[in-house]
């Protein structure tokens, strides 16, 4: 076995995933090769450091806060679309969004006035930071509970099924727009 083949087996070697004949070959190479030995030592040190990281645990108030979130959920089931509460909790978001819409409408009107070709506008708008922060303002977990309606359970379950049961954590390599929407949907679906 040469250094190149060994380096391909480094993870398997460290994680004890090598089957016997290959494991022997790797060990033989290690005995003869100080360079690879050093690589193994360094990597093993890193893995040990990761294992040794202190385990963070839930705080004492974790369950109490969770129960509060659940009772909020129940309350909102009983009083769906309680607009006043919804508005007061989200008033900042709403006014920011309203202002933004005004500005954008204004911009659009002006833009149209100056330049009749609008093809380029949508992509420019998608990348505008202010737009994305508006999108995320409603989805902040802590502000969500009061916005949960009683209906929409069906769409909620669909989204969950999509993202959790079938789609899993992976993004099929990269952040495709569709995938991105799914992620957002997973968080948004409680609204």
């Amino acid at each position, binding site marked *: 076995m040469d250094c190149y083949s060994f380096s391909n087996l*480094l*993870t*398997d070697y460290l*994680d004890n*995933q090598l089957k016997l004949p290959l494991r022997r070959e790797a060990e033989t190479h290690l005995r003869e090769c100080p360079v690879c030995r050093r690589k193994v030592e*360094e*990597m093993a*040190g*890193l*893995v*040990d*450091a*990761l*294992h*040794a*990281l*202190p*385990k*963070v*645990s*839930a*705080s004492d108030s*974790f*369950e109490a*806060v*969770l129960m509060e*979130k*659940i009772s909020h*959920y129940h309350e909102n089931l009983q009083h769906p679309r309680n607009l006043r509460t919804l508005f007061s909790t989200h008033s900042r978001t709403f006014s920011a969004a309203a202002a933004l819409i005004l500005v954008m409408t204004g911009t659009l009107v002006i833009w149209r006035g100056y330049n009749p070709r609008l093809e380029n506008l949508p992509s420019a708008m998608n990348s505008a*930071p202010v737009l*994305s*922060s508006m999108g*995320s303002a409603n*989805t*902040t*977990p*802590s502000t*969500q509970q009061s916005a949960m309606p009683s209906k929409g*359970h069906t769409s*909620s*379950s669909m989204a*969950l*099924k999509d*993202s*959790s*049961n079938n*789609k*899993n*954590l*992976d*993004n099929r*390599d990269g*952040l495709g727009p569709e995938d*991105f929407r799914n*992620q*957002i949907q*997973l*968080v948004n679906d*409680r609204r």
Partner: protein
Amino acid sequence: MRETAKYTDEELIALFQKGDERAYLELVRRYKDRLVNFVFRFVSSREMAEDIVQDTFLKLYTSSHMYKEIARFSTWIYTIAGNLAKTELRKRKRRKIYSIHDMGIDDKEFEIPSDTYNPERESRSAYQEKEIQIAISRLPEQFKTAIILRDIQELSYEEISKIVGVPAGTVKSRINRGRLKLQEILKELKSK
């Protein structure tokens, strides 16, 4: 011993699906610490990690009917927590991307939970916890997920493969590349 403690996760969720809330609480108690640790390593903020894990359990509460026995409960709940954590990180990234500090997450944001700080352990290790946490946060998302699940949560390749939804071989290659990348980032941090 709590009466519910004798059940498997899958039995518990079946009980909860039939309306037994004690079963729900047992699942929360079994998983809250692991999930908080997992999400904390992902988002580098304890408060945010708690919030995300509570939302994960809220999702379990409201959508337990979505769980089907084909998957292990742990796989399912890790997937939900991971998705919520990733969404949160992307939101943060989008907010940051146009800010003056265009260098990714500010180091000041990194929190080391004081109750877990252990100077003795720290001095034995070649790396400081904070350095490692910063390095993890700079990993590309797929590598980050693989490294946290494997080297911090210590899950098997098979389980990671199910959570992430890619073949075990792909998981292995991400762990391999993730560790190399982590080493590289740590070296950079040391040389500064």
